[in-house]
């Protein structure tokens, strides 16, 4: 594995000189490209089909979320975080709410915690399903996309019933929940768990032992655990490289310490391992949901929080295990109703750094596979 520090920067100033003369080709992939998952632009330097290096250009979806936070009260900013990783809006909300709760030194009541865990884990499954569909589509298998979207729909339906929104849910409030779980929530969730278990088998049937899938993913985009840590890569990508790091276990938040689950890890750190890790994570999430849904305690869903939130002067960093990796919120309070500074540590943005390391020496088709396997959401990369 190349040490990321020794990678030479790309010589992009004189692309014409190398064009067709020395077998080198500089091509521009994106921002309008079917496989860059939004508006990622990748400048590729190729020798025939081989990737000599690449550079990511981001910012096409920049909305200044962090700056907006400085002009909103703590409560008003809450919906904005859903728009970062819009595939896993619930996780974003959880991270933000818990960070502010930490700042306010309040804790959500147990009932709220349980419902939070259920919704977050449902969201993790939805996020992984979307990842699986698009990743498989990038590698050329078009059918899994429709299967995963069909099943993801059931999760979105539960979200819609719970809070009225499907994608940007804004499900949680600082201090707990706004909505009590609707009648039949537990039944819906249980039904979903039973519904989706065979479906995950179905995806695996299409892909896991498929020869072409194995050839396309094994040994592609390899990254070592050491490199992952050096680059700050987290989430399934890190775990697939053999590092057992899951914030749900390492620094338990919400009430994850009450639940049993495994943290799957890979060995080779290639695309296939990342695929397997995420597939196992989906099953583990179902296991967590099964435990949580049986034990939702009675009680209030909202802690006592002041109407006008004025957290004491200070700062807090709180991170959670979002579907894509460590999602951290660093909030500085100056004692007023608005945060002085909010800094988001988005997993997609940090993981995207590894793209160059993972792609050098691979083929063009692998770049697509690696972008897919990193599971980036450009809304979160650009913020």
């Amino acid at each position, binding site marked *: 594995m190349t040490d990321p520090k020794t990678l030479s920067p790309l010589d992009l100033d004189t692309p014409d000189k190398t064009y067709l003369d020395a077998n080198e*080709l500089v*091509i*521009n992939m994106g921002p309008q*490209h*079917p*496989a860059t998952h939004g508006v990622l632009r990748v400048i590729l330097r190729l020798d025939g*089909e081989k990737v000599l290096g690449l550079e990511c250009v981001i910012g096409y979806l920049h909305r200044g979320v962090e700056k907006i936070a400085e002009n909103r009260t703590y409560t008003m900013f809450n919906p904005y975080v859903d728009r970062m990783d819009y595939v896993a809006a619930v996780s974003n909300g959880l991270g933000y709410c818990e960070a502010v709760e930490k700042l306010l030194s309040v804790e959500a009541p147990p009932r709220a915690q349980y419902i939070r865990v259920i919704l977050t884990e449902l969201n993790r499954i939805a996020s992984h399903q979307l990842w699986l569909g698009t990743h*498989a*589509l*990038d*590698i*050329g*298998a*078009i*059918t899994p*996309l*429709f*299967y995963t979207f*069909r099943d993801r729909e059931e999760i979105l339906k539960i979200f819609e019933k719970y809070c009225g929104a499907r994608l940007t849910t804004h499900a949680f409030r600082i201090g707990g929940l706004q909505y009590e779980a609707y009648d039949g929530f537990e039944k819906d969730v249980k039904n979903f768990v039973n519904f989706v278990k065979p479906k995950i088998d179905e995806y695996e049937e*299409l*892909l896991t032992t*498929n020869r*072409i*899938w194995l*050839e*396309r993913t094994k040994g592609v985009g390899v990254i070592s655990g050491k490199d992952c840590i050096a680059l700050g890569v987290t989430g399934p990508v890190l775990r697939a490289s053999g590092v057992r790091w899951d914030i749900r276990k390492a620094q338990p938040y919400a009430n994850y310490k009450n639940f049993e689950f495994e943290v799957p890890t890979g060995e080779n750190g290639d695309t296939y391992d990342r695929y397997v890790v995420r597939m196992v994570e989906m099953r583990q999430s179902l296991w967590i949901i099964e435990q949580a849904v049986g034990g939702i305690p009675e009680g209030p869903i909202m802690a006592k929080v002041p109407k006008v939130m004025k957290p004491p002067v200070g700062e807090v960093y709180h991170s959670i295990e979002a579907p894509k990796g460590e999602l951290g919120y660093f909030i500085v309070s100056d004692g007023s109703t608005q945060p002085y500074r909010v800094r988001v540590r988005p997993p997609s943005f940090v993981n995207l750094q590894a793209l160059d390391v993972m792609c050098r020496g691979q*083929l*063009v*088709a*692998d770049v*697509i596979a690696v972008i897919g396997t990193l599971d980036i959401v450009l809304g979160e990369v650009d913020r």
Partner: protein
Amino acid sequence: MHELIEYITSYLGNTTQTPGAAGNFFWATVYILLVFVGLSVAVIAMNWLERKILAHMQVRLGPMRVGPHGLLQPIADALKLLLKEDIIPDGADKLVFWIAPFIVVLAAFTVFVVVPFGPTAAITDMNIGILFMLGVSSLSVLGIVTAGWASNSHYPLIGALRSSAQMVSYEVAMGLAVVSAIMMTSLSDHGTLSMIGIVEAQRADGIWFLFKFFPLGLIAFVIFAIAMVAETNRAPFDLPEAESELTAGFHTEYSGFRWSLFFLAEYSAMIAVSSIAVTLWLGGWLRPFPNALSSPIWDQVFSLVPGATFLFLGGLCFYNTARMPKHPLFRIQTMGLAGFGTLLALIGLVMLVHGVREHVQNVFWFAAKVAAFMYLYIWYRGTFPRYRFDQLMRVGWKVLLPTGLALLILTAAFGMRAEIWQQLQEAFHS
């Protein structure tokens, strides 16, 4: 005038030769038109079928709005493509850009000159028929390379290079499989390269070449079946137009009418290679079990199948008419579906008429076998991820090619086993 009519009618009684081989220009032209129209209809039908079948594999409905069950969708699409602005990029080499799609279409259509739909139902019968088919169909790579190059853009260029490399390397394996099939004809003393001759050889042998020298024929067929998917750039070998990598490959810069020509060429090339496979291994126009079930009663029974199939399809339409929503908004669609069902049923009835059914059955069996291949194409597309370029090359050169060579030797040895045995015995005794 009288002579002209005489010239035209002179071919009518001919039941041994194709019009091209008989040298009758009038009927050859008629056959060309028939094949052209039939092929266009097949491509349109294929377009609709692919979308519907793929949709149903992927838990969705596919086209449903234009016409009943989207039946008119391909026509609407064709209209849209024809009406679109004709764009030639600024930096493109205009002449080459303009010619490229025509090369591809020409290559894809010319192939059908020798495809036999029946003992005499081919435009012409060449004694080098199969060579002609392979030769002409490989010309299309020329059009693809020029298209990619003339676009003056990176993605089409990479697509074109991938495509040419792929088509050239898979042609070798394909050729080996074809040679093995040809060898099977020559081993039974009626060696021929003529497409009609190959089918006749299968009839004479009383076995499809698929099952001859089992499993050698089967292996050759499998090699061909893999190579032909690669040859036509279809999933899982659709790298030249890998949507997720190269946006649209060699035809990224093409739009409107010119793009539709590529589309047409792709589908007719699929039909062409499937026809080769059907002719070489699946007994061409021969009905199932022409020898085992050869009594006149079975002839009668099998000649009823084409009409019955169309009647069944018509019935299916009527069944779906009954299932259509009863809302007045759907009245026209329901009527359209019923009309389509009536049309199919009428065709089916005509096909049952004595005198017609003997003539259509050959074409029907051929088309049915080709249709099975078309279904396979769609099935592959719905199931498989895409190969990577180096893996594709590896499969072509390191798996298919050695297998093909070994197969060739084995087929030859197996075919000549009596002679070889004799030679060995003589050598042993002397």
